[in-house]
């Protein structure tokens, strides 16, 4: 049976892994290549790198990091952050990424998703949706959660899949970095709305949250950062815990 995936996420800025709370207050967590190797050893199913480098000067750093990781770690690598055009996708794939995650640019230019999927295949195009509760629904936010778009997140998920997204990374902006658990209704609503796999992200503080993401949120994969970065849990411990709760994992 297909296993549910655990994906450690590495937020990278200026060549270092960092972690913030609600996208603010960044804290250094170490060297990306070393951290990637550690998670691979622990049995991570994939790795996601989000380039949150603000200055364009240091943007190229991520390519070198991906090249180094890809020659030592043989599991799928997803890279996102600052992907604006088809050529950015090509550069990341050539550096060794298997999938590229598109976020803000998909909102500014939805055709980018169609063009990138048409050129490289849906299997390597992930659309990242940052959503926040607004009234009785969830709305898509961009620019690292700073800008409201007025777009309904569930409608947006359907549209992105129709354009060619092969997978959706759904982050609850209300929960990110808070360690209180995924926004389960948000994940469930999007998972039920589309046929492609979804990755739940934002808010993991303990291992039960991962179980809930799969069982209640309908996630095909769960993404977490801080519970792994600071040595609180290993990926292996997380998988053993999920297996104890009758979730199929790769161990």
């Amino acid at each position, binding site marked *: 049976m*297909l296993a549910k995936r655990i994906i450690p996420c590495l937020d990278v800025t200026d060549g270092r892994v960092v972690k913030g709370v609600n996208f603010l207050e960044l804290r250094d967590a170490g060297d990306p290549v070393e951290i990637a190797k550690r998670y691979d050893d622990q049995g991570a199913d994939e790795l996601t790198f989000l380039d949150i480098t603000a200055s364009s000067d240091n943007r190229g750093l991520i390519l070198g990091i991906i090249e180094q990781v890809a020659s030592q770690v*043989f599991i*799928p690598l997803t890279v996102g952050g600052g992907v604006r055009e088809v050529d950015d996708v090509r550069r990341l794939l050539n550096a*060794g990424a298997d999938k590229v995650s598109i976020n803000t640019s998909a909102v500014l230019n939805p055709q980018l998703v169609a063009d990138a999927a048409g050129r490289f*295949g849906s299997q*390597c195009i992930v659309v990242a949706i940052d959503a926040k509760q607004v009234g009785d629904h969830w709305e898509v936010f961009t620019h690292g959660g700073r800008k409201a778009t007025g777009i309904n997140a569930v409608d947006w998920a359907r549209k992105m899949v129709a354009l060619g997204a092969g997978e959706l990374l759904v982050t609850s902006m209300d929960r990110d970095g808070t360690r209180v658990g995924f926004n389960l209704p948000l994940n469930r609503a999007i998972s*039920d709305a589309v046929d492609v*796999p979804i990755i739940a992200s934002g808010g993991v503080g303990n291992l039960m949250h991962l179980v809930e993401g799969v069982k209640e949120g309908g996630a*095909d*994969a769960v993404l977490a950062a801080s519970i792994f970065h600071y040595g609180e849990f290993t990926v292996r411990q997380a998988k053993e815990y999920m297996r104890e709760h009758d979730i199929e994992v790769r161990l």
Partner: protein
Amino acid sequence: MIDIAVVDYGMGNLRSVAKALEHVAPDHRVVVTSDPAEIEAAGRVVFPGQGAMPDCVRELDARGLREAVIAAAADKPFLGICIGLQLLFEHSEEGDVAGLGIIPGQVKRFAAADMHDAVGSKLKVPHMGWNQVYQSGKHPLWAGIEQGARFYYVHSYYVQPQDAAIEAGYSEYPARFTSCVARNNIFAVQFHPEKSQHDGLQLLANFVRWNGVSN
């Protein structure tokens, strides 16, 4: 002398495949190439592929690689990966396109709407992630790999060989489907060994040592 040629027809990322081969065979010369002469000169050939099958067929022909691939599949140790498996078949439902016709059979799509797991959850398409691979019989490429080992998949279509005897491995999603075929010098897999950690590297290492005899 080229030891291993990775066929490059502009579809998908071949860097991962080449890196993984270099990792398991540091003393071999691995070349990513779209030159038919280099494919002909190589001792063994890896035929990967990503994206949509109609695009793959078109790009393969645009580079004049069809004959070189068919020739390699006739007598060299030959490893097909993902679309490189599907392309060996006669026909695909994806774009209603003809493949290379090296292996009799069809390529079909998973029926997304009807697929549920044992507890009733909807199964997604593409079939993406780590699934167990059951070996249908003994083969040199399975050396050191356990029955039911997990490999990384990402695909929406699967192969249906006419001759069930060429099945080398299968997975379940939720129904059983053929995910590996072996015939003489050809071994081809739907999953991505280059992304399947230890077991994937083991399979590639086995391929590098394989004499091209399946039976």
